Structure formats: structure tokens, C-alpha cells
């Protein structure tokens, strides 16, 4: 009997309090009936070994108690594919944002220890992301009907197949781009407040264009992040991806041209500073020029391929 009391006590610790008494009374009756029958068979009182033999099939107390609790999972099979996909994307973005920015700083020779710290801190960040994504999906699981969700699916809402020749949008690539944009926006904003983060030599400073370009570029980066987030959710919106790409490239080109035409790009203090500013300014103008040519060519090529593929499959008149 001593083991029975210990077993019931252990089960009770894991039961919902409102039902504990009722469940344990029923369980006690069931086990007691078995005890009585076994004692009758043996013709003597049960030993502790006899009790253990009869209790073992009921299983560990926590496992038995868990069967009385309704939800046995946080995220069920209906939501799990969406949960898993979201988790992978969120972790990829977190990795890029948490490690990418310190990596850039380390590569530029500033805060070389930052990348090590970021790598050590990433497990904590990843756990936080994991916890929040799980909490959100557990709430969705608890408050929505997965049956309705399954039944509401309409095959007519499936995306159109990509025109032949148009590359499939890789969610992973988009997640990386999103992370890089977010990290760049973070750096850009931080550099606006603290120009030390521009990593210019002490004798060189930015020209007056800097103040006018901060807001447009920050806005463009923000739009770009939103666009990438949309593409992450709907990678099949190829038209949207290209249109957004054209617009952001056009805006980026306008900003780059404004910078390229600004005089002076950099100012130097002292004779050495002026010379250094001149060299850096040439480099900067060339870099801007090359970046603009690459961005415009890539976007134009992608748009041309897309339009050509759609013309071939006769889909030009549709969206």
C-alpha cells in the first residue's frame, strides 16, 4: 500500500488541480481492484515487489498525468510546416543581423573582438528567436481551429507557375539580403549619430552632401527591407519582386548620382589631409560608378529575361 500512496502522490503533482481529486480517486479504485485480485490469487498480503509489478504497467507518474491534459503539443501538424519555415527564416535573419554587422566592423579593422562576442552571444539570440516564434505559433494553435484552416484552403489561390527561364526566388537568399539590408541600415543610422563609425582617417571628413543623403538612403533601406519581407512571405510574386527591384534600383541610382555629383565628397584638413581626401574621393567616385553600373545592369537584365519569358508563354497581357 505504501507504494500505491507514493505513486498516487507523484501522479497528483502533475495533474490539473481542479481534476486532481477526481482522477486520483478513480485511479486508486482501479489499482486497488488489481491489488485485491492479485492478493486473492497469491493467498497472502502483497509485498512491495508485488506492488511494483502491478504499478509498473501504469508508467511513470508524469507520463500518466500528461495523458489527462488536453493539449499534448505546442504546435500541431496543421501549423507545424508554417512554424518550421518561419523558424528557419527568422533564425537566418537573426544570424545575419547579429553576426553580420560585427563582421563588417571586424573586417574594417574596428572592434575586431566584436565578431567573437557576437558569435558567443548568438546562441542566446537564437534561443530568444526560437522562443518567440514558438510562443506565437503555440498561441495560434491554441486560439484557431486547425480543421477550419485546412478546410479553407482553396487550390485557386495557388500561385501561377513561373514563366520558363525565370529563376525561382530562393527564400534563403532573400533572408540573407534582408539581414544585410537591416545590418546596413543599423550601421547607417549609428554612423549618422556617431561619425566615428564611418571609419574615415582623422584628417578627412565628409562633405555637406552627407546631411542631405542620410534620410533618403535610410528610407530607401527601410522600403527595401519591407519589400524583402513581402518577398519572403510570397516568393512567387515574381512581378512584384522585379517591379520593386526596378524602383529601388532607380531610387538608389538617383541617390548615388546625387552623391557622385556633389562637390566635394570629402574634405581634408592640412596638406596631407587634402591629398588623402583627393585620393579617397577618386576611389569613392569610381566605387559609386561601378556599383551603379552593376545594379542597373543586373536589374535590367532580370527584367528583360522576365518580360521575354512571359512574352514567349503568352502571359504579357496578364499580371
Amino acid at each position, binding site marked *: 500500500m505504501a507504494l500505491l500512496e507514493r505513486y498516487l502522490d507523484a501522479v497528483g503533482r502533475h495533474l490539473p488541480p481542479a481534476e486532481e481529486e477526481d482522477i486520483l480517486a478513480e485511479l486508486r479504485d*482501479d489499482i486497488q481492484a*488489481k491489488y485485491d485480485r492479485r492478493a486473492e490469487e497469491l493467498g497472502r498480503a502483497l509485498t512491495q515487489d508485488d506492488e511494483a509489478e502491478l504499478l509498473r504497467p501504469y508508467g511513470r507518474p508524469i507520463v500518466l498525468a500528461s495523458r*489527462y491534459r488536453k493539449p499534448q503539443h505546442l504546435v500541431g501538424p496543421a501549423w507545424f510546416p508554417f512554424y518550421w519555415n518561419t523558424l528557419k527564416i527568422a533564425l537566418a535573419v537573426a544570424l545575419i543581423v547579429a553576426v553580420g554587422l560585427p563582421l563588417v566592423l571586424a573586417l574594417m579593422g574596428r572592434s575586431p573582438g566584436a565578431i567573437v562576442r557576437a558569435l558567443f552571444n548568438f546562441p542566446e539570440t537564437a534561443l530568444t528567436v526560437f522562443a518567440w516564434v514558438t510562443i506565437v505559433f503555440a498561441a495560434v494553435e491554441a486560439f484557431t481551429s486547425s480543421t477550419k484552416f485546412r478546410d479553407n484552403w482553396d487550390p485557386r489561390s495557388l500561385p501561377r507557375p513561373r514563366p520558363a527561364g525565370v529563376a525561382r526566388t530562393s527564400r534563403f537568399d532573400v533572408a540573407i539580403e534582408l539581414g544585410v539590408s537591416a545590418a546596413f541600415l543599423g550601421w547607417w543610422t549609428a554612423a549618422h549619430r556617431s561619425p566615428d563609425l564611418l571609419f574615415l582617417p582623422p584628417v578627412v571628413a565628409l562633405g555637406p552632401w552627407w546631411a542631405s543623403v542620410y534620410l533618403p538612403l535610410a528610407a530607401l533601406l527601410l522600403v527595401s527591407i519591407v519589400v524583402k519581407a513581402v518577398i519572403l512571405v510570397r516568393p512567387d510574386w515574381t512581378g512584384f519582386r522585379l517591379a520593386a527591384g526596378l524602383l529601388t534600383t532607380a531610387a538608389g541610382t538617383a541617390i548615388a548620382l546625387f552623391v557622385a555629383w556633389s562637390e566635394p565628397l570629402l574634405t581634408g584638413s592640412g596638406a596631407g589631409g587634402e591629398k588623402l581626401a583627393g585620393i579617397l574621393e577618386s576611389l569613392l567616385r569610381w566605387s559609386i560608378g561601378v556599383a551603379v553600373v552593376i545594379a542597373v545592369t543586373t536589374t535590367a537584365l532580370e527584367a528583360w529575361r522576365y518580360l521575354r519569358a512571359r512574352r514567349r508563354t503568352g502571359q504579357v497581357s496578364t499580371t
Partner: protein
Amino acid sequence: MSRTADGTPAPPDQGEVFENLRQELRRGTLVLAVLSELRHERYGYTLRSRLAQAGVELDEGTLYPLLRRLESQGLLASEWREEDNRRKRFYRLSPAGRAVLKQLAAEWQSINTSLTRML
């Protein structure tokens, strides 16, 4: 995944695969068996004895949670009563349970007929 000496994936343990599939198959029929036996009022111990006599074995930790779930779904009704100097909880089908049992039994007959033709 375990692999054989030549690097190909090892075949699954057929005994384990069969046991998992067997349990899966039987699990789906438990509700039908329990509802069927509860057309007459019974308490847990006698219900399990009846099921065992009929060849339906249940783990000790499975029956009572299942009974509670079916009761919370409105398919069973229960009451505590004293019998043989001991308080017992007696279960029986509710009207909703009778209707569901009828539907499930028809479904079972249909599956059984189809599978018998196939096997």
C-alpha cells in the same frame, strides 16, 4: 540513420516497424471498442476486463484518460456510486455518444468490407 558496411542505408528493423504500425492500427479502433462496450453501464475495471476478454488489450495508463476525453466531448456520461463497499465511477453512453457510435460503426463496416475485398 544506420548504414551497412557498403555505405547504403540499413533496412529498418521490420519487427519494430510492424509493431509501430500494429499499434497505430489498433489505436484507431479503441474508441469504437470503448463506445461499443459502454452501451451498458460499466466502471473502468470491468470495462477493461470486458475489452480484454474480447481481445482488445489496453495499456493501464490509456483507458481512463480516454474515458475522460470522451466524456468531455459529450459522448459519455458518468456518476460516482458505491458498490461492494467501494466508490466507483460508472460510465455509459450519452445520447450523443449513441449517435456517434452508430456513425462510427457504419464507417467501420464500410472500411472492413473494402479491406476484406482488397486483402
